[in-house]
């Protein structure tokens, strides 16, 4: 790791101030991606602005059907939240299956979303739940937020403060782990929301997370795995790598979608 200047931010605005004064600063949330990347010398920020302890960025509130999760809420806190589990167990179980216990107790939902790793789990949930990403400047719909591999709508110095969504009528996430990394090789989050069925896929798309509109239409007709049986998932635009080609991922998209739907 190269030398880096560490700052502990007391609040989102404090963090924004610090980073604007830095040469090439980066926000540090749980650090579960950034720190290993820096250790491998693949990233070399001049400054790290730690927002993990900043005021008002962590915590979960469930108000009727409106769920708000602070950006610095750890995966373990999401996984273990009883109120959230009662209204949206799909997201608590998703969080409980990210990485290993050490990752879950440091990694945060805001960090995961801001990184937009194409194999991360949360982006699929945000897209399928129609979540709103709230920053220190504005509110961004999930679909506008995720803009391709590791790309988001965040401006320089913009900080995610929380995310908000309406608890779905039902929803489930089915993940097929990569045999080596155990990141999602394909993960499908299917939700029955007030706006109809929404199906989002992570791990498979060459441009990152995406919605599977054919499946959504079929599930609007009938929420069942059978409704997906005749859908052909094209391998166009899907990733191919040493772990599986696009045809295999296309198959997994269909199988995992069916399993997610069948489970709720």
């Amino acid at each position, binding site marked *: 790791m190269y030398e880096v200047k560490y700052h502990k931010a007391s609040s989102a605005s404090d963090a924004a101030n610090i980073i604007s004064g830095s040469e090439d600063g980066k926000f540090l949330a749980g650090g579960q991606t950034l720190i290993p990347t820096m250790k491998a010398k693949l990233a070399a920020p001049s400054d790290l602005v730690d927002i993990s302890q900043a005021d008002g960025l962590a915590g979960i509130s469930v108000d009727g059907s409106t769920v708000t999760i602070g950006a610095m809420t750890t995966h373990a806190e999401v996984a273990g939240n009883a109120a959230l589990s009662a209204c949206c167990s799909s997201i608590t179980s998703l969080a409980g299956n990210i990485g290993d216990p050490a990752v879950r107790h440091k990694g945060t939902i805001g960090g995961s979303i801001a990184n937009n790793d194409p194999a991360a789990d949360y982006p699929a949930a945000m897209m399928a739940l129609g979540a709103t990403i709230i920053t220190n400047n504005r509110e961004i719909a999930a679909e506008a937020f995720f803009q391709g591999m590791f790309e988001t709508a965040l401006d320089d110095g913009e900080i995610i403060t929380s995310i908000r969504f309406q608890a779905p009528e039902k929803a489930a996430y089915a993940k097929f782990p990569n045999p*080596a990394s155990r990141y999602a090789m394909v993960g499908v989050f299917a939700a029955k929301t007030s706006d109809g069925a929404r199906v989002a896929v992570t791990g498979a798309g060459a441009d990152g997370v995406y919605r599977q509109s054919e499946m959504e239409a079929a599930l609007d007709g009938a929420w069942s795995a059978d409704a997906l049986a005749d859908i052909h998932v094209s391998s166009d635009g899907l990733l191919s790598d040493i*772990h599986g080609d696009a045809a295999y991922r296309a198959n997994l998209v269909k199988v995992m979608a069916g399993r997610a739907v069948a489970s709720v």
Partner: protein
Amino acid sequence: MSEGIGASVRRKEDKRFITGKGKYTDDIKQENQAYAAFVRSSHAHAIVKNIDASEAEAMDGVVAVLNGHQLTADGIGNIIAGWAITSKDGSAMNMGAWSALCTEKVRYVGDAIAIVIADTQEIARNAAETVMVEFDILPAVVSPEKTLESGSPQIHENAPNNQIYDWEIGDEAATDAGLASATHITEMEIVNNRLAPNPMEPRAAIAIYDDAEEHYTLYTTSQNPHVARLLLSAFYSVAPEHKLRVIAPDVGGGFGSKIYVYPEEIACLWASMKTGRSVKWTSDRSEAFLTDAHGRDHVTKAKMGFDANGKIVGFKVDTIANIGAYMSLFSSVTPTYLYATLLSGQYDMPAIHGNVRAVYTNTAPVDAYRGAGRPEATYLVERMMDTAALEMGVDPAELRRKNFIQSFPYQTQVIMNYDSGDFPGCMDKAQAAADIAGFAARKASSASRGKLRGIGYSSFIEACGIAPSAAVGSLGCGVGLWESAEVRVNPVGTIEILTGSHSHGQSHETTFAQLANDRFGVPIDSVQIVHGDTDKVQFGMGTYGSRSGPVGMNAIVKALDKVEAKVKKIAAHVLEASEDDIVIEAGEVKIAGTDKKMAWHEVGLAAYTAHNLPEGMEPGLKEGAFYDPINFSFPSATLICEVEVDPETGVTDIVQFTTADDFGVIINPMVVEGQVHGGLAQGIGQAMLENVVYDDSGQLLTGSYMDYAMPRADDLPSFTIEHNNVPSPSNPLGLKGCGEAGAIGAPPAVINAICNAIGNNNLSMPATPSKVWAALQEVSAQQAAE
């Protein structure tokens, strides 16, 4: 409770390991210690035109940047392979030069170019990045088949077409005749996938030069410190043996990868002398993936012929073995005498011919890895057997039984003389434990849940404790393959056993102590095992090839024999009895059938006070021995793997895994079971998960755990381990060796089971979900076409 042979005594060494008190090379710190980092090639094949270290040399905290030209000028020798293989045309093997630091050319990604010495590891690594190497990039080749093609990049000048040797074993004419007489021939092309060894502790070294004494000390992660010292002095000219002490302290796993002396240890020793600083280097995981010797990597075409009764009439094998960019220490012998000599498997084969071409490619060196040649032979033979059974429509177990060798000794057509075994007995026990009779019902139950169930066999024999020295010498080995031991009984009766074997996870501190308990009745807590230090231990050939049991422990037995004889002489003299009447029982030395006795420690004291010894006897109670085996030992087993495949995803679940092993005499059953579990984990890893992949330009694509899949606990089933042990007649203890068995036997059992489940025999390792799914699509397409 007994602590002798056959007792499952808990491991003495575990207290320090599980409380974090183990002392590994990286835990050791020296006064005046500096740190090394290596400048490595980012290209698989290139001419080094210039090295500019000026920026690094100017950095605060940088002590020196040293390169291969300086190393060569100081007379440091090239790294060698220790076993000379002669091609079938009588020519010597084409070994290319391997300098610890490259001079003219780099040949794989990770090749060391320069060593940076600095006050901290951080400075050393950052400085190494600033060293500007000007490359003239050459085309690279990574495939063992393509490298032999004309027009492929030439990697070493003295190895035309990148071929190191073209070697054969067995009788080609007899094999061709056998195949010509066959009523059925099974023909296969088999790839044995390339593996990264991944010991938990990465390699590390601390080199300490004392200029007043002109003496070097090397702490290193070695499986065989005396062999390292021999190589460093006799071949690499770092220092003469009496001026070089090599210490291998606690070592966290080796699996073969820590047998060899690598460029880094040589460079650190030399740099310590050049800079006057102690030099420490610790590999990180990325460097380990790039530079630790990989394993396997064979491509083989084979034909096995059968007569109308299903008896094998001939087996012909043509293998290309990828050696990587340089010949590592055991690289020449692993794909020849450790591989093709096992092609007969457990079967009575009247004719065998094996041809092996070893080739250079622009990849990391490939060398012995847990099993070393025997897993490659076993995978080939056992895939052939299941495939032949499938093609001939016979039960794979029955085809094996029909061909099992039944009487011993058995001389194979490929050098080995099997001394003992009970192959049908292992098959019987494995089949009973695996409930073969109930398989059909289990398969039906799986089908009712939409799952595909399959079963696969592997019946293997391997050769451990490579020996005797005279025989291996006649085959080209550069050293003797005996082992040595010294047993010291102290005046208070406690015992130190000094052994040339080295423990890096094998529980020697427990099992070796059990030998002393078994012989003298002393508690194992009063027995200390000393190993891993050339200044303490007289000599040793180290630990690899499951040799610590069949060779190392038998050396201890020889030394115990001598101690016992002297103890009896002393006791007979003191007790005024005949030596023949003295017995040693439960820590007492007595006259048989009487109550006249000496306590064990009284004999020790008598030996050292020397007040009342037999006429002419030297004082003291310390004996040494060298043991050179008369033959290899031959462990064998039948393994049965049962799998359930999810046809939608291609995910394979191992639902049952059974082995029935013949390890000869077992010292500590719990330790042996642990060894089997670890071996099976690695064998299953090879079969289903692990694979080293280079792209065509020679860049390593599987350089971290993000892409290199190691087996995890939840990938593995609970194992059923049965024993059908036949003591080896070839060594005093009757041991056969167990360290590699699981890794050797498991891969074909797994692949045979998956092929059986999915109804497609066209499947290569690792059988990942995506590959199994693709194989299932082939079956569907075939069925649709019919």
